């Protein structure tokens, strides 16, 4: 069963029928929902918490909440959006409680501005594409978490801008700006790596 379902903006919710069954207490439907969505939840938790064990614990907490809150889910938004919202807020709450990086979320825009303000260009681009990819993927984990979060939702989970605004509770312009800043920060990481 494919774990990754492309979310079409404005399209019908592929999990709607399963959700309705699960709301009535159908354990098999819940099992299918868990199976089809667990990678999103786990991946999101990992991208925010940056720790596999914490991401596992978080996924468990998320599904406990989902299962308990499911009877009250009215379907105003897609289930996947609702699930992402629960997972995101649970991850951020967990991150705050862990206090691993007291300024990571609040935020380390200084670092980003430092990167963005740097105007030096490099003459050579020695990286081959496959190395680029690995390097860029690694650099995402060094970005402030709010940028890693929007990148994850947009590129890995393939949520639309509208869905991301619903999940994060941010205006559309803010979401787009954060995505652009994250892209630029990664581009600057490439430049600095090539300059070394």
């Amino acid at each position, binding site marked *: 069963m494919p774990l990754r379902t492309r979310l079409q903006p404005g399209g019908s919710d592929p999990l709607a029928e399963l959700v309705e069954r699960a709301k009535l207490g159908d354990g098999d439907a819940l099992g299918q929902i868990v199976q089809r969505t667990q990678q999103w939840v786990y991946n999101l938790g990992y991208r925010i918490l940056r720790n596999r064990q914490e991401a596992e614990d978080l996924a468990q907490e998320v599904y406990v909440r989902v299962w308990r809150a499911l009877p009250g889910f009215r379907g105003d938004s897609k289930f996947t959006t609702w699930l992402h919202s629960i997972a995101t807020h649970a991850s951020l709450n967990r991150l705050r409680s862990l206090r691993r990086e007291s300024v990571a979320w609040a935020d380390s825009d200084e670092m980003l501005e430092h990167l963005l303000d740097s105007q030096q260009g490099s003459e050579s681009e020695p990286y081959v594409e496959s190395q680029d990819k690995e390097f860029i993927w690694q650099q995402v984990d060094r970005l402030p978490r709010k940028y890693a979060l929007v990148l994850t939702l947009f590129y*890995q989970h393939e949520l639309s801008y509208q869905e991301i605004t619903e999940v994060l509770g941010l205006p559309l312009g803010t979401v787009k700006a954060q995505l652009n800043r994250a*892209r630029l920060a990664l581009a600057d990481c490439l430049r600095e790596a090539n300059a070394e």
Partner: protein
Amino acid sequence: MSDNHPRQVLAEYVASGEQDRVLGEHWQHVRDCPICQRDLQRLRRVEVALRQWPMVSVPAMLNERLLAAARLPRSLEENYPRWTIWLPAVTVVIAIALALLLAPASLHVALNAPPQAAEPSLSFFALDREAGLALWIGMCVALAGIGVTMGLADSRMPDREDLDVLRTRASRAVEHAWRVATHSR
């Protein structure tokens, strides 16, 4: 956006691919500026990499663990519906209210009764008057404490974050115990 180079615009352009709408007035500058051209190249590489960015793989045992956790809470609520908390709490409150209403009269009688000859007795008011009063008040306070505690415990339920953690840990402990038990057979 920097002072000289429209970097935010470049980032949006690379992501959207819509040259006319996004680049607009910046198009000519971007075309002629070597810094913007290099930025553009790097942003394209970033875009390609991000579009192929894989999700982290899910641990093998996570599915079972999630299913077990997801099914646990609602069955707990079915076993322990809210009335099982509210009914005892209301009962305790009524008991305390009745005790407070009735206690002063009975205590007043007991306290104003003429002292009797010291005879061995097991009755409550045979105790020293002050001790009896203290004991009575202590019981009322204890009962009120139980009622308040139960009430507070229930009012915390909408928040539920602590309860979630507790249940998660409990389910993990049960899961671990189950594995140990099944492996030991």
